[in-house]
């Protein structure tokens, strides 16, 4: 009897929480340049967002975001933006752009890993879609949830992603 009441109460509570969540969908908090964002494995600080000319003749122009990345975990990370990778999601006019290329500012090589306590400056580069009209863009940052003991094996695990912050701004160099 008591167990049935407990299960029923848990189901009702869960349902009520879901209804509350659906009634008032929470937008991730806004962030600005220079404000650090916790993505789970790394802390990302956006430093600049600017339009840039194409890398080579015949290619589209690019949108570049410079960020500072710091590994917050106790081991080197190859999945800097989590797994599967969730780099900052750039959207303009409601359209989400493909994932950016991430290169080290230090030597222009692709970012392959990030070591603890060694912050790196990197550039995220998106190619501008041909039909893009200059205007504000929004960047959504996702945080991956870490559980020290997951529900399956009791092992530490990286689980779901949640939007944790959003930055809306007009890129530098936009008319």
């Amino acid at each position: 009897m008591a167990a049935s009441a407990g299960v029923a109460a848990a189901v009702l509570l869960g349902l009520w929480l879901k209804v509350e969540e659906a009634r008032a969908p929470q937008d991730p908090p806004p962030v600005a340049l220079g404000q650090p964002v916790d993505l789970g494995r790394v802390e990302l600080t956006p430093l600049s967002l600017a339009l840039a000319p194409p890398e080579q003749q015949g290619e589209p122009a690019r949108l570049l975001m410079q960020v500072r990345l710091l590994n917050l975990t106790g081991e080197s990370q190859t999945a800097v933006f989590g797994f599967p990778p969730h780099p900052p999601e750039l959207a303009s006019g409601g359209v989400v752009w493909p994932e950016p290329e991430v290169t080290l500012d230090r030597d222009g090589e692709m970012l392959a890993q990030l070591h603890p306590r060694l912050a790196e400056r990197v550039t995220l580069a998106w190619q501008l879609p041909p039909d893009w009209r200059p205007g504000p863009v929004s960047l959504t940052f996702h945080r991956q949830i870490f559980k020290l003991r997951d529900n399956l094996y009791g092992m530490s695990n990286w689980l779901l992603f949640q939007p944790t912050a959003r930055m809306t701004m007009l890129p530098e160099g936009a008319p």
Partner: protein
Amino acid sequence: MIWLGRIAIVLAGAALLGGMMQTAPDYNSVVQPFRHHVAAGRTGEARSFRARFTGLRLADRIAFRRYGRDLVRDSDGVFLIAEIEAEATLASQRLDAVWQGASGRRYALSRRAEDIPRGLESRWFQPGLSNRAVAVFELPADEVAGGALVLTGSFTAVFDSALHLAPPALPERRPIIRFEP
């Protein structure tokens, strides 16, 4: 009075269960490699290989040649170059290395130094044939002293051996180290 007895039994059960949950070792601490600590200069014996930490160098930058291009890598930290001598004892195999820093943080082989001459990630070790290899790590300078080189026979090494090799005496930090083919 009967009710009091039942409540006491439930409370005692809950306390026992809580105690077991708190004291039971978690998955991560149970599913681990078996550690063997090896003093500086000594040869460590793992289940499927033996290895010795033969040399340690520190540099601000490293230089090497890859695919016909001369590359120079710099860092906000320091490059630690560990030289090892190892041989397999059961079958041909590769080795993986991690630098466990003074703080306990674990630094993987630097992917920015991939394909250096004699690099550990491309080396195979054969039974009965001693072979030398170089492992390059990128880490903050204060993680070097008090750290150890951890060698494993596979990339997970769960329930397998892990050699924790103490480093030889720390050398002077050099501005650049060039890896010759």
